[in-house]
């Protein structure tokens, strides 16, 4: 019982005044993942670390379940989300976003030797995988009705899980952001089929509505970073094209 109490006490005094917590989806390489040593790594993590140093705050990166990441932000368990989050009108109702820092296209991923086309996936009664709680999942569901597409959406915890099931042959294709799709194609025998008509999206950092000061800080830091040579280094490091 004493051990339990001690654990409670240690864990309840974790909020230092100056340390901000960045919530990440560690299943989202190359933007956010857990590296070989078990530490958070990725494009967004390096970018935020640079910004934190310039703007004078310390930051901790906390891996969280993507489904619960906005509730965690609202409940003040974390202070912001810098983890490849698309800026969408629905999310903007609940949180504020920083300036956009990365443009993302949505693509289909299929087996390397597959001869499927994007149209066949949309209208050929295929099973299509997608990560639950993402903007592409919402868009595909809404537009399937409007445009008469007849694929069956299969929901996954993460994009890599959907890729895994493409390889298992359980689904014909998976929809995801182009960057993690490239990451998958570099590691597994899958290929990108191309975009499927979804509008281009932008990634931004999310903060609570009332935290305007933090939003200013992050925006300033982002602007500095994107004007700095380090930004291109980061792009080169994480996106090999």
């Amino acid at each position, binding site marked *: 019982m004493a051990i339990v109490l001690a654990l409670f006490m240690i864990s309840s005094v974790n909020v230092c005044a100056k340390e901000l917590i960045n919530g990440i989806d560690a*299943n989202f390489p190359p933007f956010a993942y857990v590296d070989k040593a078990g530490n958070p790594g990725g494009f967004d993590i390096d970018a935020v670390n640079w910004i934190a140093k310039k703007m004078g705050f310390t930051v901790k990166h906390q891996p969280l*379940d993507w489904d619960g990441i906005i509730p*965690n932000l609202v409940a003040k368990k974390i202070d912001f989300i810098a983890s490849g989050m698309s800026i969408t009108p629905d999310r903007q109702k609940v949180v504020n976003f920083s300036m956009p820092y990365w443009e993302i296209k949505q693509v289909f991923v299929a087996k390397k030797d597959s001869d499927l086309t994007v149209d066949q996936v949309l209208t050929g009664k295929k099973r299509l995988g997608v990560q639950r709680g993402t903007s592409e999942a919402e868009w595909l569901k809404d537009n399937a009705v409007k445009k008469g597409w007849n694929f069956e959406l299969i929901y996954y915890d993460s994009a*890599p899980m959907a890729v895994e099931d493409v390889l298992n042959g359980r689904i014909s294709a998976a929809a995801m952001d182009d960057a993690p799709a490239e990451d*998958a194609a570099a590691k597994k025998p899958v290929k990108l089929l191309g975009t499927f008509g979804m509008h281009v999206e932008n990634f931004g950092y999310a903060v609570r509505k009332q935290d305007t000061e933090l939003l200013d800080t992050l925006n300033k830091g982002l602007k500095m970073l994107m004007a700095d040579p380090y930004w291109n280094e980061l792009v080169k490091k994480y996106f090999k094209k």
Partner: protein
Amino acid sequence: MFDTLSAILEALPYLLEGALVTIGIVIGAMGIGLIIGIHMAVGQVYGNRVVRWAVGIYVWFFRGVPVLVLLFLFYFGLFALIGLNLSAFAASTLVLGMTTAAYQSQIFRGAILSLPRGQFQAARALGMSDFKAIISIILPQALRFSIPGWSNEYSIILKDSALAFVLGTSEIMARSHFVASRTYHHLPLYITAGCLYFILTWLGVRALLKLEEKVRIPGYAH
């Protein structure tokens, strides 16, 4: 093959760290459940109507609502509402503890009811108070009988602890998932996670079996 093996070996220290988190949750939750559970069992068997009713409601609630829902409900709702700012680890431990308390109370209640009624009456006839009879006569026997059921509950909570990740506690399962996402070795990593759970279950159940033998009253067992 070699690729897979090296990915697992590389990830092992990270996963073992996760096993410590899992062990922390399970020990904490089982401890909380033990303490609350014993009280509730005694209350449900010997308490007055109000106590029996209150315990009954508690047990129905925690047995009736899925653990996943309870975790969200308490972490984002109730704990926040009463100003209790618990970490994800503390919150998952507490919620799992309160849940297992409901199940454990029924293990203990069953054990108490399995004792012959005459024992309590005999203790009272010898001049013991109700409290003394329960502490010195009933519970020492009932708790011994509870060990098999309790070890069953341990193995269930151990695996339920994987749900803690919905709150952001990086235990075995969450960590396996992270590594799989980076390396695309999903199946081997889930097999590794399965082995870790198996080992933890085996160790715990084995230890409880030893305890059961150790505290057995000579000539009293079947």
